[in-house]
């Protein structure tokens, strides 16, 4: 598998990242180098193996369905880069006609 510039741009968009042209060249080379390394896994026969998904063997870990307020509205907004009294603020999302 070779990653090319188009794929770098596609992955970057999926990850909501962006790179300038110089960075794209570097990340393309880095990703290919690391993928070559990851592809050694193809040497392992896993045809009869189920993927390991959960690391814990507890089943149905439940707690009482009680409503508790762990943080306040103000605390929820406390670290926002931009906010008003009640809401997070973002740049305008919908274009004005």
């Amino acid at each position, binding site marked *: 598998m070779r*990653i090319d510039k188009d794929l770098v741009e596609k992955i970057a968009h*999926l990850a*909501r990242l*962006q*790179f300038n042209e110089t960075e794209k060249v570097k990340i393309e080379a880095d990703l290919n180098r690391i993928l070559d390394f990851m592809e050694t*896994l193809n040497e392992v026969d896993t045809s009869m193996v189920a993927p390991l998904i959960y690391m814990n063997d507890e089943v149905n870990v439940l707690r009482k369905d009680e409503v508790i307020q762990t943080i306040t509205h103000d605390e929820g907004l406390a*670290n926002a*880069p931009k906010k008003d009294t009640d809401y997070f603020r973002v740049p305008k999302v919908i274009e004005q006609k």
Partner: protein
Amino acid sequence: MRTYHSLEEVRADLLSSKTTLVSLVNYYLQRIETYQHLNVFLHVYADEAVQRAEAIDAKLKAGTAGKLAGMVISIKDMICYKDHPVSASSKILKGFKSIYSSTVVERILAEDAIIIGHVNCDEFAMGASNETSHYGNVLNFADNSLVPGGSSGGSAVSVQADLCLASLGTDTGGSIRQPAAFCGLVGLKPTYGRVSRYGIIAYASSFDQVGPVTKNVKDAALILEVIAGKDEFDATLSSKAVSNFSNLQAPKKNMRIAYITETIETEGIDPEIKAAMYNRVKALQADGHTVEPVSFPYLKYAVPTYYVLTTAEASSNLSRYDGVHFGYRSPNATDLESTYKLSRSEGFGEEVKRRIMLGTFVLSAGYYDAYYAKAQKVRRIIQEKSNEILSNYDLIILPTTPTTAFKIGEKTSDPVQMYLADIFTVQAPLAGLPAISVPETTHSNGLSIGIQVIGKRFGEQEMLDFAHYLTQNH
């Protein structure tokens, strides 16, 4: 003030009034000031540490002090502490203040530990040398031209340089054990599901565990005893009972120990580390234990498996940094998409972006089965084969690292070389097993060599007893 090597020593001097906790805290604060160039602490909580010391001095007099009274501790910049900054050593969380405390912080405070500050680490714990931090690298106290290891490099050096007695770090692929080995300390990664991850900044959630860095096994066992156990806020936690780990016992007479041939008979291992391992094998045999070589041919697949899975989990976990709800927002953002893209691209460092890209790729349509599902299958094989060894033996021993601490900048140009620094430490978290690194001997270059013990699932007690015995029998 003398240099303390254990909580027991501190407690003895406090009880006989040779010193007070206030003077001990002041001593550490002074050293933190003196050794600022090591770049260990991101935030020092001087006033509150002194205030807590006064209160705990009074409790000690009254005989009402908790298990960790006398322990001055630093916490990695991945661990939330209410009303205190935490940033994962990343620009994207600069200025962030925790609105709640992690369970581990609640528990150590309830037992009267004193948190003296937050310490530096690799950005989002992604690194093996503490060189990816937005706040610059941490220097190894033994030799300032060397890395301390990572990602819990600040944790390790805070203890190594006697800036506090112990530290809480996090271990995903070796981030506690590798820096502990590089700095001549004890580093413990508990069984997955032993310690709550609530309030820990997430990197790879099926791997991450909090654990201590200390100067001896008993202090590590004591901290584990305090932080381990069921927590309503983390559903992956085991309901298994937590024993008094710090009540260390001599291991049984005829232990069955396996050592993994591939970790010793390998290219790239320092010959003195290899010799140290064989010396230990002989010494254990002479002491009446059965110590045998086992083959673990999957060792070479451990690091690639680890990086497929952890980058995938990281790409998902780090999607929460969106420039909207908390953390850094780019001043150049003009709409929603550029808020996401610019905030993330300007806020994350190079290694973090590389891992998010890899993780996004291995999870993306068309590549998921070939990379992500494949690695999950190899993970199962690694877990089953590791458990198979542990069904025939009590414990596994192996080197913690193939080399002693390396030079700053030595591995930064090639990500694969840096990833291979984790070669001996990723097996335990891939299999969900507990592991501990303890100092084994000193290399002719003057640096510490660590030895690692892997225990059975939830077999921390046996592992700690044995690790303690190793440190007592050189």
